[in-house]
Structure formats: structure tokens, C-alpha cells
């Protein structure tokens, strides 16, 4: 009886503490009334690069608060065509923003290209597969049992990976080894966790976070797959179109370009 009472008291106390922690975050910025918010849905290959771009952006635009959600371009496109409350969409290709434009969901003439993605073959250094020397053809090595790529059905990087494997003439041999991540970040996670031996992933992900400095990296010949032109668009439903424009303009500016370059993206038209 006593023990039960103590347990109930403990649970109540925990509930109070938890709900207490959740309160009071709304006014954390203190700036209050002047804060503008831009909600961004971004392709997962932008994870590290965009985080870095935003650090600079906040310094230059202290009153504009950019919140980013990372995920699969295809998934975002679906959610956006069903009214998801994002102001800006940064896709890993140009066709998803195009589709949203055709559906009349975007601000007229707001489509823009912001980067060109690059593809690499990646494997853990410790496995010593000789990826650096062998490149994409090395994936036929029987020692490599599982190769992670993004799902070519709805991830632009997945489509590029399949095209590159076909160009190298190794698709037939590698196909049985393929495991598909829902997006490029999940494919990267399959390799990082060691569950897949190698992966064909975005260069931008291999240069930062958990993959940084631990892999053998070989860039895939840029001519062997359709260019990964990455485009974005501003949604009609944006709460503050001007703030959204401020952000997209910044993304096309010299500071953001320097960061994107550092993370292994080429710039539009490069």
C-alpha cells in the first residue's frame, strides 16, 4: 500500500517536472514581436552544409528565424502537395519543385537552382577494399557484400547512383548487393553503421558528421550520370514570403556559395 502510494507520488512528480520543462520555450528568443519565421523542408544531402549556412545567416539576419526539417525530396513533395506548412522547399533535384509549380502551389517565378550534388563511392577505411584506387568498379569485389544507395524510385541521388553503375558497366553485377535507403542520409547510415560494406552516396555527407575522415572516398565521374541539379521553390502558403525571399536570396549569395563549395557541392552552372 505504502509502496504504491510512493510510486504514484513519484509518477506525479515526474509528470509535473516534465510538463514544467516544456513550458516557457516560446519566448526563449526575447526579441519577441520582430521575429520572422521561415520553415524549410530540405533534402537530406544538405544536412551539414545547410546547418553551416544557417549559422552565418543568423549572424547576418538576427530577426529571421529559419527552421529546417531534413528528409526525402519525394516525401516532402507529397506532403507539400497536401498542404504541409513549409515556406521553402529545397529539393535534391529540379523535377519535384517543377511539379509543385505545375500544381499551382508555389509563388510565381520563385524557382531557383542552388547547388549541384556530387556522388562518391564510400567505404570504411578499416575494411581496406581499395575503393580510392578502384572507384566504382571495385564494387564488384566479392568481399563487398552489401552496397547502400538511396531508393532510385523517389530519391534523386539513388537515380544518379543507378545511372553511374550502369555507365561503369557494373550494374548487373552490383544489383544483387544493393540495399536501398529511404533517402541518401539513410543510405549513408547503412554504411556508417557497418551493415552495408560500401555505399554510393552524396559527397556532402561524407565530408562531415559521423562519416568525416573515417572513409575511403572515390568521386564518381561527373559525366557518368545525369547532373544532380538541386532546385528550390517558395510555397504560396508561406506565412511570410518576404522573409522566405531573404533566405533564398542569401542561399544564392557569395557567403552561402563558399559554404556549399566547402561541403563538396558545385554551384549552379558550374
Amino acid at each position: 500500500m505504502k509502496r504504491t502510494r510512493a510510486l504514484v507520488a513519484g509518477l506525479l512528480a515526474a509528470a509535473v517536472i516534465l510538463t514544467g520543462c516544456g513550458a516557457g520555450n516560446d519566448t526563449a528568443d526575447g526579441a519577441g514581436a520582430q521575429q520572422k519565421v521561415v520553415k524549410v523542408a530540405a533534402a537530406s544531402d544538405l544536412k551539414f552544409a545547410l546547418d553551416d549556412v544557417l549559422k552565418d545567416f543568423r549572424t547576418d539576419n538576427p530577426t529571421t528565424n529559419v527552421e529546417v526539417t531534413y528528409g526525402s525530396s519525394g516525401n516532402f513533395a507529397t506532403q507539400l502537395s497536401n498542404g504541409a506548412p513549409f515556406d521553402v522547399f529545397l529539393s535534391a533535384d529540379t523535377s519535384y519543385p517543377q511539379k509543385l509549380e505545375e500544381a499551382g502551389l508555389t509563388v510565381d517565378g520563385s524557382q531557383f537552382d542552388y547547388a549541384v550534388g556530387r556522388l562518391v563511392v564510400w567505404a570504411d577505411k578499416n575494411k581496406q577494399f581499395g575503393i580510392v584506387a578502384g572507384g566504382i568498379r571495385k564494387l564488384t569485389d566479392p568481399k563487398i557484400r552489401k552496397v547502400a544507395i538511396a531508393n532510385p524510385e523517389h530519391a534523386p541521388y539513388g537515380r544518379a547512383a543507378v545511372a553511374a553503375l550502369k555507365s561503369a558497366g557494373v550494374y548487373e553485377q552490383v544489383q544483387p548487393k544493393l540495399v536501398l535507403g529511404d533517402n541518401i542520409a539513410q543510405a549513408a547510415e547503412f554504411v556508417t553503421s557497418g551493415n552495408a560494406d560500401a555505399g554510393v552516396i552524396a559527397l556532402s555527407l561524407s565530408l562531415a558528421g559521423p562519416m568525416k575522415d573515417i572513409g575511403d572516398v572515390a568521386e564518381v565521374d561527373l559525366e557518368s550520370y545525369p547532373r544532380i541539379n538541386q532546385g528550390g521553390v517558395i510555397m504560396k502558403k508561406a506565412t511570410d514570403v518576404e522573409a522566405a525571399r531573404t533566405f533564398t536570396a542569401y542561399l544564392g549569395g557569395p557567403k552561402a556559395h563558399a559554404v556549399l563549395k566547402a561541403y563538396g557541392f558545385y554551384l549552379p552552372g558550374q
Partner: protein
Amino acid sequence: MDWQAVLLSLRLAATTTGILLVVALPLGAWLAYAPRRWWRTAIEAVVALPLVLPPSVLGFYALIALGPKSPVGRWYEDLTGSLLPFSFTGLLVGSVLFSLPFAVQPITAGFAGVDRRLLEASWSLGEFRTVTLARIAVPLALPGIVTGAVLSFAHTVGEFGVVLMLGGNLPGQTRTISIAIYDSVQAMDYATAGRTSLLLLVFSFAVLATTYTLQRRFTYAGATP
């Protein structure tokens, strides 16, 4: 409609249910008849965890725990020469963990509902406990056992998060019906997604309706007063 995915889901659900019955019958009996000590409460809580944990949490832990960087993963690799993630067997491990409470809880309730005097009569006549369990408790707890089996099966068919984290989307190996629907939606093929979803909806309704009908019948037959 991706029939390969439908068949794979059914195969996964049937195998999962088979394994769960083997695990949940003794576990359910123990939970129903063992004296209430702290460790019984602890095991009850562990069994119920998948009810409250997000599938993504289970999937993430499974990917780490079965992967080549964990002792379990390495042991399995030494034994079979292949890894558990991205394989049907790996999904099976994930599904068994994920659907455990759906099998164990109804089965425990079934055993707990058996009239204790009948069990005690059997014991006092000198019958072994295991024989009593098999010949008296199990038949009387049958409604609970059937419910547990049906729910495990249906729950596995509807599984998504664990498969997404652990599966790698291999046709015929790990591309289940829920993943096929997700892929169709992401590829903006809403017609296929709609058809497959409808099939799953009708199936789920039929399963639940059957379960409730069975339960009512058993109760009228006076299996449990």
C-alpha cells in the same frame, strides 16, 4: 499492386506468429500463474515496451544490435556468414520483438481466466504440472490464445517503422506491403498506393471482425464463465 510485397508480408506475419506462439505460451502461463514478485512485474513491463516505444526506436536499436559492430551481429555472422539486417531473418527478429505484447498479453489473460479450482483438482489427483497445463489450461485459455495469434499476425502485416529502419527495401526479401505503399506515395503513384492501402484496410477490418466473432462464440459456449 505489388503482389510480391503482399506475399512477403503474409509470409513474415505467418512465421512471426508461429515463433510468437512458441514463445508466448510458456511465457504467458508463467506470467499468469507465477507468484507476483518484483521480477515478474519487471518482465511484464519489458514485454509491454513495444506497445509504447516508437517503432523507429525498436528499428534503430535492432539495426545497431544486429549489425556487425555488436557481439550478437558478429556471432550470427560467424555462424552463418551473412548479416541479419537487410534480410528476411533480420525482419523476423524485429517483428517477433515488435509484436511480442500482442501475443503475450491476450494469452496471459486467457490463462489467468481459467478457473483455478480445476487446475488444483488436477494437481491433487497427481497429474504433472506440464500435463495439467497442456490438457486443461490450454484448451480453456484457447480464446485468449487465438486472439493473441490473430493480433500478432495482423500487427506484423501492418508493421512499418521497424522494417523501414532495418530492411533496406529488397524486393522479395524485405519490401513488405507497408513499404511498398510508402514507396508508391513517394514516387507520387497515388493510384497504386490507394489500391494497396484499400486492400490492407479491408484485410484489417476482416481480421478484427473475425476475432470479435470468435471471442463472442467462445464466451457463449461457456469456455470461460
